[in-house]
């Protein structure tokens, strides 16, 4: 994968004053044109003084709300520091309800009525996929934060880069990469605990196909017996048969890939019945800082993949900055930014830097400059060092995944729910998260369930 260092842009801020004045003049004119074309109301709908950032997320989920708050935080911080290109920044946020149709309507309105200049968001891959055409048609910079499907880039950019050039994904790494890393994590567990048998259980959804296909075979290749490789129905309520099956297979861990199926029930029945295996994998609900209280503490020993270690390890110096800023602002659920919040915070900031360098935020007039600068991104964010893959790479505009999970580029982390010392856990609980893998960011050992 080719990397394109972007030192040439580092100095662009030195002449920002001149650039800004010119930009303001230019964009006022363009704003008027856009307004009349779109039949929109209001003079400031363009770029005449406010840059509007659209945010689309299922805000009733912890990840979505964490992202929305982090986006607001990023916008507030930008405004304190003079905004973007001397314009005030405004966050326009909408609830996708995790539904492509809702998201499509909301983003259409954001584009036509609010005249947003950039869109950030969505943890839901189907939403990201369904927005691609709409966003591309409007040349709107769209920074995807959370959704991990490789299809977004494989089906769009790889076919017609020019059409979809305005769509980027700052993070996380795509699900193929995640599947690969998950297998590496399995090997780590095997070395750590001497485990030789594992179960892979994925919910029967498109996003987990890579885990069913790749993770299992990679584990096999490294000499681990994958005794179970099951896909379970999305409306699974009763976990007993699956847990029993894993138990009788002799697996020492069940690597799950579970997002749509609520796993609180599974977790508590795993823990309360003391099923003799460990629970690992990609468990979206377990990423929430409130998962410990949701499961009444039965989450202990459960590990999940997540970016930025959900803020519980210092991935970069900025990780704790964002975490602290968030926690001084918000103390209700979710009590941490969630992994999406970190990526969203980074996305807004890297966008700000890119348009500063481009000297324009006017995507309708000058999307090429904006894309060029986004492409040149080399941004130290709160969850990693963010660069994008080039137009000729396999996944153009997708985040550069680095050489391995512990790389400084878009690191992939596993956190485990563990008992907190002195009852000093998240919220008022006894539980906390520790980063157990990769070793670069590790601040706790992977623990096997006490009953194993």
């Amino acid at each position, binding site marked *: 994968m080719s990397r394109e260092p972007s030192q040439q842009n580092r100095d662009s801020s030195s002449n920002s004053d001149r650039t800004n004045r010119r930009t303001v003049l230019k964009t006022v004119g363009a704003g008027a044109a856009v307004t009349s074309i779109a039949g*929109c109301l209001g003079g400031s709908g363009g770029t005449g003084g406010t840059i509007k950032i659209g945010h689309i997320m299922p805000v009733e989920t912890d990840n979505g709300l964490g992202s929305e708050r982090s986006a607001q935080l990023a916008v507030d911080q930008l405004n304190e520091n003079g905004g973007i290109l001397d314009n005030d920044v405004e966050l326009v946020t909408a609830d996708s309800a995790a539904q*492509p149709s809702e998201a*499509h309507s909301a983003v259409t309105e954001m584009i036509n009525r609010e005249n947003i200049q950039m869109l950030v968001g969505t943890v839901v891959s189907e939403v990201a*996929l*369904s927005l691609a055409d709409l966003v591309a048609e409007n040349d709107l910079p769209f920074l995807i934060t959370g959704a991990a*499907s490789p299809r977004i880039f494989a089906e769009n950019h790889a076919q017609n880069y020019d059409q979809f050039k305005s769509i980027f994904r700052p993070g996380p790494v795509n699900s193929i990469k995640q599947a690969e890393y998950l297998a590496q994590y399995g090997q780590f567990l095997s070395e750590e605990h001497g485990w030789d048998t594992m179960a892979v259980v994925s919910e*029967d959804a*498109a996003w987990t*196909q890579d885990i069913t296909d790749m993770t299992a075979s990679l584990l096999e290749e490294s000499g681990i017996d994958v005794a179970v490789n099951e896909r379970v*129905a999305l409306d699974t309520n009763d976990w007993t048969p699956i847990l029993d099956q894993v138990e009788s297979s002799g697996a020492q861990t069940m690597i799950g890939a579970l997002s749509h199926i609520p796993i609180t029930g599974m977790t508590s029945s795993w823990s309360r019945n003391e099923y003799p295996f460990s629970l690992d994998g990609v468990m979206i609900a377990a990423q929430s800082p409130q998962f410990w209280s949701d499961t009444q503490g039965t989450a202990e020993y459960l590990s999940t993949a997540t970016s930025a270690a959900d803020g519980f390890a210092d991935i970069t110096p900025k990780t704790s900055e964002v975490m602290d800023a968030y926690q001084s602002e918000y103390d209700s659920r979710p009590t941490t930014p969630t992994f999406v919040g970190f990526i969203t915070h980074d996305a807004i900031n890297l966008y700000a830097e890119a348009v500063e360098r481009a000297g324009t935020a006017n995507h309708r007039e000058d999307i090429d400059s904006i894309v060029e600068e986004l492409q040149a991104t080399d941004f130290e964010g709160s969850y990693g060092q963010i660069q994008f893959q080039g137009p000729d790479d396999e996944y153009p505009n997708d985040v550069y995944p680095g050489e391995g999970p512990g790389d400084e580029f878009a690191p992939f982390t596993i956190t485990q729910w563990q008992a907190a010392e002195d009852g000093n856990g998240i919220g008022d609980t006894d539980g906390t998260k520790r980063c157990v893998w990769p070793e670069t960011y590790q601040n706790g050992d992977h623990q096997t369930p006490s009953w194993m």
Partner: protein
Amino acid sequence: MSNEYDRSGEPVVQRFTREFLGEPNRYQIASAGVALLALLTVPFWAGQYLYVFALASIWAIFAMGWDIISGHTNYISFGHSALSGGAAYTTGVLVHNVNPDMAMYITFPLSILAAIVIGLLFAVPTLRLEGPYFSLITLLGVLVLTQLVYIYGEYTGGELGITAVSTLTYNLTNLYYYTLIPMLLIGAVLVVVSQSNIGRILRAIGENEAAIESSGIDTTRFKLWAFLMSAITMGIGGAMLAHFYGNITPSTVLVVDRSLEMVAIAVIGGMGTIAGPIGGAFVFIILRDEVLTVFGSTGRWLALWLIVLFFLVFLRDGIFPFIWSRIGSIGGGRDE
């Protein structure tokens, strides 16, 4: 239909209205004309609502499709999105798996055919029996179809859906007319059917099926015909929805919630009237996407369902028949 009711006086128009709308007074004719004219000129007076109105037009098609069978005969379908969703998925699966450049003149008829086939699977076993059986089968039908989309995720894209469908247009004005005109045409056809003897028999089935049967009419045949019309309508709407969004996912076109929204629209607008559900779709979508958003994304749904409940208890006939009769009796007022 013409937008010149208000300047009428021509015998043709008078005969038409008498035959199909009962004996409307001139206020009613005028308000219907104004409503139609308003719809046709939306880009000039409500430009920022074009997207919402376009969406409402498609939902109006669905609500009419529901209404011609369920609203008329009182055989309540809780799974009509299986028909529209089946059509949308047919378009998607063809484009996604067979040929990405397949022309609409091939996918469109096949999608409608799919809606008919799915519809007949619902209808044949149940329509000769009483209402609840039909409701249960439609409810299960939509759940099964949703499940099948996941089971055959290889072809349907599972929950991620199919993005290969081409979007109709990004020009909102064009989008609006692309949805409005078919909706009005379907509406015209279904209003004619609804006001004809067929429609009267269907409504009579809804009121007292035994009585109609004892007068020697084969009610099952009429129900099947109504269902066929419904399926065709749903097929057209479903294929349109696929091209409206340019992508198809279970939650967008298929899940049972979509079916219940159709029921809600018809209830608000006025069941068994065809024209009512058209208006109902606009009221519902505007409430959902514009007005009730003040209650937040969950709160608006709560408010919506409570509003529908209010209609069921206090204004069973729906808002438009109510307004229509008010205009008819007092004179004055506006809207359809």
